[in-house]
């Protein structure tokens, strides 16, 4: 027996479904609006010169040059920070899963990581800056890398932790039963099996790092030169966008939009690239 199709209960059901789909559409439209704005305003001023040159004299008054210093600076910063974060994130994730599993220590460390994830990057930046003053270090690529690594560490670790948690217990236990030590299980079973997820976690953190402005604002400095040493100051794309928008010259602001577009493209490439890479690597794992 069918219910009356349009009684009140079904009407509510229908209204809620429409509201839900409508909300999803709104979220999609927001993304569309953001991408459209960035592309429409950034593309006209995006020239080869922007990408291939460093700022020449008078760049900030609308004369020639580009933001190569910021592009390379950001890549150096994010790569360095990601490399540094891996050194800590991977052991932590492995230790949490293979040695500690769900003990009290593990819960405490996870809570700490979640809390660290929540700390805004401006606080890391301010903390890093005071530390630099105490140590007498000047704004440099190295300082920026260290502070960015702090921002990336919890993101990367928790993502790896989740991936490793989803690995079937049997695999590790089979290896243990054959006499492997836990370290061998971690290095020879867990890492190869979860490699796609680990790569995704690393690139997720990289994407977060390259887009972060607040952490490098005081710690990495800003310069028109391409950094040649870890101890020199370096430019970064988010700050390039921010500073160019702050100038009174319309041409320079246009370049700020173009820089924002460059940053968006890099971040999207990393995001989609990680998914593609993970799918490729998936083939080499035991199902």
């Amino acid at each position, binding site marked *: 027996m069918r219910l009356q199709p349009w009684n009140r209960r079904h009407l509510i059901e229908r209204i809620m479904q429409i509201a839900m789909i409508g909300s999803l559409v709104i979220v999609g439209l927001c993304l569309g609006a953001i991408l459209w704005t960035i592309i429409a305003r950034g593309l006209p001023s995006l020239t080869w010169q922007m990408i291939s040159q460093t700022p020449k004299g008078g760049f900030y008054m609308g004369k020639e040059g580009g933001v190569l210093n910021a592009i390379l600076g950001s890549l150096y910063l994010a790569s360095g920070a990601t490399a540094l974060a891996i050194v800590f994130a991977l052991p932590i994730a492995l230790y949490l899963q293979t040695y500690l599993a769900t003990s009290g220590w593990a819960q405490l460390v996870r809570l700490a990581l979640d809390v660290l994830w929540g*700390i805004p990057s401006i606080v890391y930046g*301010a903390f890093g800056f005071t530390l630099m003053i105490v140590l007498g270090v000047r704004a440099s690529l190295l300082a920026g890398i260290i502070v960015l690594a702090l921002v990336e560490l919890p993101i990367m670790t928790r993502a790896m932790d989740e991936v490793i948690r989803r690995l079937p217990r049997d695999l590790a236990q089979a290896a243990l039963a054959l006499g492997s*030590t836990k370290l061998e299980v971690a290095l020879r079973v867990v890492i190869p099996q979860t490699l796609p997820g680990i790569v995704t976690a690393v690139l997720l953190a990289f994407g977060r790092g390259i887009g972060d402005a607040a952490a490098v604002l005081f710690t990495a400095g800003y310069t028109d030169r391409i950094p040649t040493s870890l101890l020199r100051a370096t430019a970064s794309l988010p700050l390039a966008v921010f500073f160019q928008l702050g100038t009174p010259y319309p041409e320079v602001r246009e370049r700020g939009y173009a820089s924002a577009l460059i940053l968006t493209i890099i971040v999207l490439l990393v995001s989609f690239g990680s998914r593609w890479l993970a799918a490729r690597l998936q083939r080499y794992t035991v199902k």
Partner: protein
Amino acid sequence: MAQNPIQSTATTRNQRVVVASRRRTDTWARRVFFVITVLPIGLIAVVLIGLLYRSWPILSRYPLVDLLFGVDWKPSEGRFGFYSFIVGTVWVTVVGVGLAIPPCILVAIYLAEYAGARIRLLAKPILDVLAAIPPVVYGVWGLLSVVPLVETVLGPWSQQLLGFWGLFAVQQPTGFSVLAGGIVLAVMITPLIIAVIFEIFNTVPVDLRNASLAIGATRWETIQRVLLPQVMPGIIAAIVLGASRAFGETIAVLMVVGNIAQVPHSLFDAAYPLPALIANNYGEMMSIPLYDAALLCAALILLVIILLFNIFATVVLKRFVK
């Protein structure tokens, strides 16, 4: 080991040496890993103590109540009242979270309970990309789209329709406002809130839904009467997480919120949140006495509030993982 008959009789020493060395490696790895693993706990303590130590000059000089509730902000005269900045942060956060909550809950429910594989496959990249877009790009979008929208459309409408109500009156018609900051924040925290709520819905056993559907409830009734009461603490935790993210967001908000040190009274007033205060003034803080301590105190206030938010959210969410 030596008592083990198989090991001691069969081939030998060599093997035992290898086993022993593998054991040693494992023990050392365990120790090193353990030290690395407790670093995050230490890091929180170090950041807290470091900020406390550096903001001590101002904390010891003025009573806490004066700092938190003082309205005067004149660093050159030695007057440091954080009230307008704290209120500004709260306003922007509340507006952002308020705008984000309804669509986020609906989308999360839709993806968890209604959507088929194809819609989920479509929605995932949307949310991933929203989460991947850097804050400064959100700021540019806010500057180019949201601020003009508030200035030319939302402001005049609101003034005309609801102008008699202070909250919606337009005193500062520049578009750089609490509302612009809130809209940008709402979009920024959307992917996080949706992801968390979606995960929570997935922890509810299927049987619960089936039982409710079997006795004739519609799907929405099942969600409303059976699932929502179950997941309510988790939804609140997700919102708190989103709020803490919004609370600390710096660059995107800084670019659209106006940065005028005042207590906002309307959605269309400019505000000056704490993170923006730190970001804008850190460069010149060394020139004025106590200024650096004041700014680090601002960072400390931010950190303490966010720690509380996050610990609450994490503890609540832990219950769902089991």
